[in-house]
């Protein structure tokens, strides 16, 4: 607990001393009587002042929360001395906004144990340490100021809030495990696929009696099995465009979080590759544990400036399983990401690119030359998208404010038409 004199202490000491000296010089005891109260306040204040003895405990009602939701911190104080006016501040990190009364001013009697609830809103995804408590108090006469910072920090993970998606992008090939996808192959399932003549070994319940009656010989239904899929979210962390408090990385992380949650809910296996200055990956897996693993990995996503050339060869082999859908979310600003995605397509991966458009985050300059440069830059981006489309990679420009579902629908439309063209 630090202690410091307030300006009032110096002023009172000066007034008391000056008054007493003046009384001696002028020989008027009334001046001593005028100065005496200041001296008495000084003496009483300094002799009675004691550092406030306050202990505190803090607990958050949640360790994890979603963007936009609220968390409550429960702070318990234990006063071992009287504190006339204790100022209490929960110093929150950026990305977390206080709701309600923060700071607060309280009077604590000896042995008081008040419990204080401080609510705050999780405004931005990330991992935060919450619990920096600042206590400030003065003595009864305002002559000394005491201050103490308590480190009661606890981790709080705020997950990105993504869009609700009704239909997901489906890979061209499925895997062998049970899921909710309808593959092109035939097998035991519910989804009707085709009719064929009965062969010994077919189950009687599969007989299509209407077709059998029409043709005069037994015909059976064929179905598609339900299979799961492997999906790898490819997040570009080489570069981002940022304007103010938001940037393309924020949008990318929100989209990635939303996609991961929906794919895992559909019992698909999901993996993550954060391709950037710091390479981070998670091999595909399913279940709630994988969901939180991926979301925690997304919270660590940040732009790390690096000039080292990287390509997909540095990724471990199991990171990109065969027949997996690779969903790349990238602003396509860095050449390394552009080349890596083209490389993935060349190696036969099922690739789709959601371009988090940096155009809204780049304001054109004021001069004619700046305007020309801006328009050229936009044209170059259109050319880049066209080159991907020529490779057969669906690329959709996704801007802030546009639903992610709309972007996925564009990709789905491209893949549907592409399939017809190849046939």
């Amino acid at each position, binding site marked *: 607990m630090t202690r410091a004199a307030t300006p009032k202490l110096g002023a009172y000491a000066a007034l008391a001393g000056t008054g007493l000296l*003046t009384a001696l010089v002028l020989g008027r005891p009334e001046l001593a009587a*005028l100065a005496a*109260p200041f001296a008495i306040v000084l003496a009483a204040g300094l002799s009675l002042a004691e550092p406030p003895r306050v202990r505190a405990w803090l607990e958050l009602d949640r360790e994890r929360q979603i963007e936009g939701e609220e968390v409550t911190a429960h702070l318990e104080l234990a006063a071992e001395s009287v504190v006339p006016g204790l100022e209490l501040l929960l110093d929150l990190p950026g990305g977390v906004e206080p709701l309600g009364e923060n700071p607060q001013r309280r*009077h604590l009697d000896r042995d008081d144990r008040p419990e204080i609830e401080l609510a705050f809103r999780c405004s931005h995804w990330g991992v935060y340490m919450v619990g920096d408590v600042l206590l400030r108090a003065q003595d009864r006469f305002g002559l000394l100021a005491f201050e103490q910072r308590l480190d009661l920090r606890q981790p709080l993970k705020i997950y990105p809030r993504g869009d609700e998606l009704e239909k997901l992008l489906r890979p061209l090939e499925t895997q062998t495990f049970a899921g909710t996808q309808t593959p092109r192959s035939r097998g035991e399932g519910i989804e009707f696929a085709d009719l064929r003549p009965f062969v010994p070994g077919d189950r009687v319940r599969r007989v299509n009696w209407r077709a059998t009656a029409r043709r005069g010989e037994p015909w059976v239904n064929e179905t598609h099995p339900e299979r799961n899929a492997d999906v790898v979210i490819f997040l570009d962390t080489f570069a981002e465009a940022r304007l103010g408090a938001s940037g393309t990385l924020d949008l990318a992380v929100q989209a990635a979080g939303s996609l991961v949650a929906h794919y895992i809910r559909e019992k698909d296996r999901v993996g993550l590759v954060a391709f950037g200055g710091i390479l981070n990956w998670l091999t595909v897996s399913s279940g709630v544990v994988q969901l939180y693993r991926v979301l925690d990995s997304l919270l660590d996503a940040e732009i790390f400036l690096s000039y080292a050339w990287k390509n997909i060869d540095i990724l471990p082999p199991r990171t990109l399983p065969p027949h997996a859908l690779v969903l790349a979310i990238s602003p396509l600003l860095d050449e390394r990401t552009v080349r890596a995605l083209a490389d993935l397509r060349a190696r036969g991966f099922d690739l789709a690119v959601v371009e988090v458009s940096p155009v809204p985050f780049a304001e054109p300059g004021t001069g004619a030359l700046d305007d020309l440069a801006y328009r050229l830059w936009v044209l170059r981006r259109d050319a880049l998208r066209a080159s991907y489309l020529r490779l057969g990679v669906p690329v959709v420009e996704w801007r802030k404010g546009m639903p992610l579902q709309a972007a996925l629908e564009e990709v789905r439309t491209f893949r549907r038409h592409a399939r017809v063209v190849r046939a």
Partner: protein
Amino acid sequence: MAGALVAAAVVRAGGHDVLLLVIGAAAIAAIAAGLVLRWSGGLAVGIALLGAQQAMRLALGPDALDEATPLVAGALLLAAELAWWSIEPRIPAWAQPGVAVRRVLTVFCTCVAATVVSAVVVVAAGARVGGGTLLLLTGVVAATAALGVIASVARRSP
């Protein structure tokens, strides 16, 4: 409060009204500057000038002991307390009901106690005691000790 002190000093003075008014006006101006600019030095100068006005009134007035001094002392302390309370850092903080009330009661009790102490000093001054170098020295030591408080407690302690 400061204005009332200035006016009372001018009214109770037996002359030299202009001089006392000038000092009083300077005191009020300094206090006003201190309040507006949240400047502790201004308040200290203003309160000191209020005291100087009293000193001038006493120096130019009769030699008889002024029996209203305890009331003036209490009022001066009240003005000082309210002035420094006004310039305390204002943070938008929710305050528990009663915190301000307790502070007001503390200030009021302090001023009452100060008036009593001042009255004791005036009574003691009215008693017949011999002067002398020892008494003068004691007074100088007491005055200097008050100034020495700044150096001993102004430093921050860990």
